[in-house]
């Protein structure tokens, strides 16, 4: 076994950190638009967490382009391999697009893009009600798409771990084992 069968440590740390952050963001998002009482703290968390995800996604994309991920099992049906690649790039696209849409949407609506009560980001889109309305709908609609993609991704990962019993889940769950004799029965 060599290290290339596992994602590098930066990829793994980013993956699991962002998994928690993105899942939290999706729940915060649907909670804050419905809640009458909890909106303020939820939205105060949603904005900086979204910006953090944008920065982490850029870092992750850089790492991904520099370090090829471990290959999928050779015996994986072709449609599953294709679905895996497509869903991974969809996840990258959405985790970059969602924060940018949120930021642009607030800009177009004329809202201050507050990171903390004292610190704000500059607007990245012109003040325009029509643009606001479309960005707002895109941000909400793609959030559901992202949640669905995350669920599909999770299902596929568990399928590899529990049904196929291959190395795919382990390649993200942990690093390459140290080169010591492995006496566990296979």
């Amino acid at each position, binding site marked *: 076994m060599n290290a290339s069968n596992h994602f590098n440590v930066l990829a793994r740390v980013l993956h699991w950190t962002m998994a928690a952050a993105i899942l939290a963001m999706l729940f915060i998002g649907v909670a804050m638009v*419905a809640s009458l009482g909890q909106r303020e703290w939820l939205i105060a968390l949603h904005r900086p967490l979204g910006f953090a995800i944008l920065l982490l996604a850029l870092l992750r994309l850089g790492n991904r382009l520099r370090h090829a991920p471990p290959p999928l099992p050779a015996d994986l049906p072709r449609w599953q391999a294709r679905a895996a690649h497509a869903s991974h790039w969809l996840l990258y696209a959405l985790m970059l697009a969602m924060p940018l849409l949120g930021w642009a949407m607030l800009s177009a609506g004329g*809202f201050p893009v507050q990171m903390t009560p004292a610190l704000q980001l500059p607007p990245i889109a012109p003040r325009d009600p029509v643009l606001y309305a479309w960005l707002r709908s895109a941000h909400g609609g793609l959030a559901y798409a992202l949640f669905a993609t995350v669920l599909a991704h999770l299902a596929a990962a568990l399928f590899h771990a529990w049904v196929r019993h291959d190395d795919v889940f382990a390649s993200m769950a942990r690093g390459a084992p140290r080169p010591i004799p492995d006496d566990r029965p296979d």
Partner: protein
Amino acid sequence: MSAFPPLLRRAWPLAAIAAILAALAAAFAWTASWIGGPRLTAQRVTDAIEAGNGRIHPGFRRAHAKGVCVTGHFASNGAGAPLTRAGMLAAGATTPVLGRLSIAGGDPHAPDATTRVRSMALLLAGADGQQWRMAMNNFPFFAVSTPQGFYDQAVANRPDPATGKPDPAKMAELLRRHPEIKRFQQWAKTAPWADSWGNTGFNGVNAFRFTDAAGRVHFVRWSMRPRLAFAAMDKAKRAGAEADYLADDLQARLANGPLRWGLVLHVAAPGDPINDPSRAWPADRQQIVAGTLVLDAAQDQAEGACRDINYDPTVLPDGIRPSDDPVLAARASVYAQSYNRREREIARGQAPKTAHRESAR
């Protein structure tokens, strides 16, 4: 395990995966209030307001639909600076204002004299990008103390199709559940009507948490006190008033010069109701005039900047935060719903009466 036939051995993991997915999806749906029984949400309150309006007026605000845009500035005198580090209340600070004067109700064409409640909404645009948005009304305290009360009131006020008036039994039940509404009804019955927006005082009935430069917290409500002397308009005069007399009066007054209000900060004493906007604070509380609001121009709301502003009273500069008042939090949630709905109607071209700028493109 080896006793299980192979099919079952494969079925268990698949069932576990399906269960995990279903649990996550259910948790998501519950968080979004899609499942788990009817909860009071921003959507439901906005729906109740729309239902009370009888119909949707595309592109207009769901509440306080009729109004005009106003512009001017706020000049701080520094007297509020000991209460908050917000730069807009520093001595000598002058902040541009994009505002709106309106009447309550969901009909953008209602005759002005039909509505008791008038309001002033302001956006103070600080030089550093900070904003202070306010949404104030002429009533001295809010009708209800909770969002549930607001929702129940909206439902009970809905005209009975048979009589065209609210159902008296439902109104009685409303007052039993939310007795604070009686105080508001008393105000609505007895307080004289002003004959102009310009001589009306406006109150931001919710409390806010001010933090001063030393980090000390002060709970504050504010109001705009007009420079013009109050002039009442009795029932007979109202009956003969033009439908848009408030806007006509405003234009006539502005043609002669700007209108001014003093920003009055009311500072809570220990024990004052911070979280209940339906209860006024005693009149002898410390009051600080922190500066002057100067309005010098008005624009039709289809053309002015105010059309596309959500006067969310929780958009605040550093040094001012919302209190725990549940009505204040709910206003932010419901205003966001109303804003998104009308901006989408404008974007889809469904709002010809408000869509002047878009149709010109």
